[in-house]
C-alpha cells in the first residue's frame, strides 16, 4: 500500500505538504518537510482507498529546536 498524505501544520499555514509514504504514519512520528521537521498529532482517512493507494490527512505541530544556552 502507498499512502498519499496531506500534511497540515498547526500555526504554520504556509507549510502544508503532500507526499507519498510506504508506511502508515502514526501519532508521534517526526517528519521532515524539506528543511522543516514536524511531529504528527493526528491521522485520519481523507477519502477511501483506491487500488494500491490510501489517502490520509495528517495534522502536525512544529518541532521545537532545542538550543543550548551558556553554562
Amino acid at each position, binding site marked *: 500500500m502507498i499512502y498519499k498524505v*496531506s500534511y*497540515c501544520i498547526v500555526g504554520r*499555514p504556509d507549510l*502544508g*505538504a503532500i*507526499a507519498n509514504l510506504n508506511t502508515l504514519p502514526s501519532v508521534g512520528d517526526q517528519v521532515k518537510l524539506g528543511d522543516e521537521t514536524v511531529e504528527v498529532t493526528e491521522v485520519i482517512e481523507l477519502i477511501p482507498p483506491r487500488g494500491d*493507494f490510501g*489517502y490520509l*490527512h495528517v495534522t502536525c505541530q512544529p518541532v521545537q529546536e532545542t538550543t543550548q544556552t551558556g553554562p
Partner: protein
Amino acid sequence: MSVISLLQRSELFAGLQPEQIEQIAALGQDVVCQTGDIIIKENDPSDEMYVIRDGMVEVLVSHGVVTDVPGPPKLAPLVRLGQGQFFGEMALVDRGARSATVRCVQNDTVLTLIPRQAFWSLCESDHHIGYVVMRNIAADLSFKLRHRNLRARLSGGRA
C-alpha cells in the same frame, strides 16, 4: 529508485499496465536540483510536467502585485510536494502558461521531466493511457483541493 519503479509508485500512472509505464518511462529525462533552484516560473510557457522521484519542492504563487511598484512580486507558498507527487500537469490539460512558481527546498531533489508533446502523442496512440492519466490527474486535483480546504479550515480561512 528507477524511473519505472517511480512511475509505478506515482498515483498519476496508477491503473496502467507495466508495458504502458515502460513506454512513459522511455520519454522521461532526469533533472537534479538543489535548494533554491527555480524549476518552473509563474506565467512562463509550459512544455512539460515533472514527477518527483526523490526530495521536495515548494509551489508558490505571486500575490499583492502592484503594477507600478518595481521589483519582483512577493511569492506566497501554497504547498510542498514530496516523493511520488507531480506538478506542471495543468500544462497537459490546458496548454496554458504556468500558474505557479515551483522551487526546490531539498538538496539533490531528483525529478523526472516528461515532455508534453511526446506524452500527448503517446496518449493519442494509446487511448487507455490517455484515459487513465486524465482520470488520475482529476483525482489528484481533487486531493489538492481537499488539502487546501483543510489547511484553510485549520488556519481560519487564511491558507
